[in-house]
């Protein structure tokens, strides 16, 4: 855990330049423990660059960072004892079988007893469903099997932090499902920091997200907060009846901060921004239903799809969170 805060990963103003190109431009990131943290961004946003810096594979041009409170540059080898990493394209020693690759990887972390190391490898093969193919040449593995073996290799040392670079992007829907299931199973044992551009996956399994664009974190926080959108708490209502009557009633409520209305098929579609979520939950619908000329056919808290938020941020809008 960080000395400075309760975070597994914490970075301050990390930049990375390749000549004239600024791949990262002051990245501040905080990853809480035991979360599945989705690191989003379009291709070329700098996701892999940051991951490599966190792993000590690349050095930041400026800025600093800690993992488990240890400096990512000076204490990289020590940090890596507690990390599992799955690169975008999983790599293996091709002349070894899956079991041999696992044994080889495990020996970077454990020195014995050999029986226990082998047991640990077998356990990982079971976890990712490759026990029956453990001694086959890796060359015959499918993309999904390679990805699962990659996850097993990344997880063999009981890491406190798993860093996965695009773990499901090259897979078909079934392969993706496999990988997401494995990630969900690992949630209770470790913190998972993974990059992706598949927003559906993020919404399905992540607790928190950060969105990187042009080398900068443009949004970050718990997934619920991100999906709430930048307007804060907004309710959406579809009402049959006089829009004027609805407007009057809403404007009389002190915690309603803003309303918009649109007409659709004889109904009015209202977006109501509120400053007091608790009051809105108990009184908003009740207030409208007091008017017997109005019929409310739909009432819900407005939630954005991650794709909407992502597109808005990446295509120009900046939520500034």
């Amino acid at each position, binding site marked *: 855990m960080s000395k400075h805060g309760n975070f597994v990963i914490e970075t301050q103003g990390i930049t990375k330049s390749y000549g004239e190109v600024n791949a990262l431009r002051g990245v501040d990131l905080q990853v809480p423990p035991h979360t599945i943290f989705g690191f989003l961004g379009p291709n070329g946003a700098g996701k892999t660059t940051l991951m490599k810096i966190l792993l000590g594979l690349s050095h930041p041009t400026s800025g600093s960072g800690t993992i488990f409170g240890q400096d990512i540059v000076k204490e990289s*080898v020590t940090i890596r004892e507690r990390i599992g990493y799955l690169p975008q394209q999983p790599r293996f020693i091709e002349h070894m079988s899956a079991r041999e690759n696992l044994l080889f990887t495990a020996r970077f*972390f454990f020195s014995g*007893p050999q029986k226990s190391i082998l047991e640990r490898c077998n356990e990982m093969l079971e976890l990712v469903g490759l026990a029956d193919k453990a001694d086959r040449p890796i060359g015959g593995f499918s993309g999904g099997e390679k990805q699962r073996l990659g996850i097993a290799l990344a997880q063999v040392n009981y890491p406190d932090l798993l860093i996965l670079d695009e773990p499901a992007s090259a897979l078909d829907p079934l392969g993706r499902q496999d990988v997401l299931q494995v990630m969900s199973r690992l949630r209770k*044992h470790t913190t998972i920091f993974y990059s992706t551009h598949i927003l559906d996956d993020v919404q399905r399994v992540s607790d928190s997200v950060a969105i990187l664009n042009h080398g900068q974190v443009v949004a970050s926080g718990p997934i619920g907060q991100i999906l709430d959108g930048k307007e804060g708490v907004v309710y959406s209502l579809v009402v049959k009846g006089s829009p004027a009557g609805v407007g009057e009633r809403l404007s009389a409520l002190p915690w309603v901060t803003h309303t918009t209305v649109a007409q659709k098929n004889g109904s009015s579609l209202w977006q109501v921004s509120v400053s007091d979520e608790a009051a809105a939950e108990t009184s908003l619908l009740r207030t409208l239903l007091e008017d017997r000329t109005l019929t409310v056919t739909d009432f819900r808290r407005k939630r954005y799809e991650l794709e909407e938020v992502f597109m808005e941020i990446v295509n120009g809008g900046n939520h500034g969170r």
Partner: protein
Amino acid sequence: MAANLKLEHASEWSAVRGFSNLLWKENRAWWGTRRWWVNAILWPVLLGGLVAVMLFVLPGVADPGNDPNVAAAGGPLPFALQMGRTVFFELGTLAVALGVIVLLQDSIVEEKQSGVAEWLLAKPVARRSYVLAKLVASTLAVLTLLVGLPSLVSYLLLSMREGTPFPPLSFLGGLAIMTVHTFFYLTLTLMLGTVFNNRAPILGIALGSILGGTLLGGLIQPLLYVTPWMLGKFASLVAGSEPVPAGLLWAPLSATVVWSAIFLLVALVKFERSEY
């Protein structure tokens, strides 16, 4: 998840963290695949075969009456022994260096290109361990398969043809020079692998050093004192107990050792600073 497995955490000197495991991997790549027996057959057959031709075929065609070299050597048999030794130490030294370059040219580059190096370095591994593991495993394999086995075969052939054991100390002296020469190209190739990201410049520079070296040494003689280009010749002379001016031998021999150390140092520093 059985986090209760009684596993002991690896405790290795942090400066060479991961070395033993990486060395195991490198040794396995040499000795756990067909690579070892292909080389174990190829080199003794190639070099031993050439020596055998010199020893057993040449005396039948060498004519001391027509060839002053045969006469100078003292007859067809001494001439054959001289040629056998020369072929092994002079030609063999060059052939082994070529073999080292070909075998090791992609040792690091291939792993950099495929992403295996990146994957390995994401483990708790000191970067110098990666280079040192390659160096130790390659040295062991090359000295055994490319130098040791052919030497044994050639020594036996020379002894058989001579009818008495070939002077072992002289032979070992020649072999030591051959080893220094081989190590030079081994460290050079590994160093180039850390510097470049594709095979072409590695092959170009390393092969250029061997093939262009002799030519360049002929044009700029002082270069022969600070390069390994004459070592094959000296190995042959030392093995044949023939006189070699001490200064002429020790200068290039020492320089070659120093060059190898420099190459290793550059490889370690360059790899330490590389980004993946």
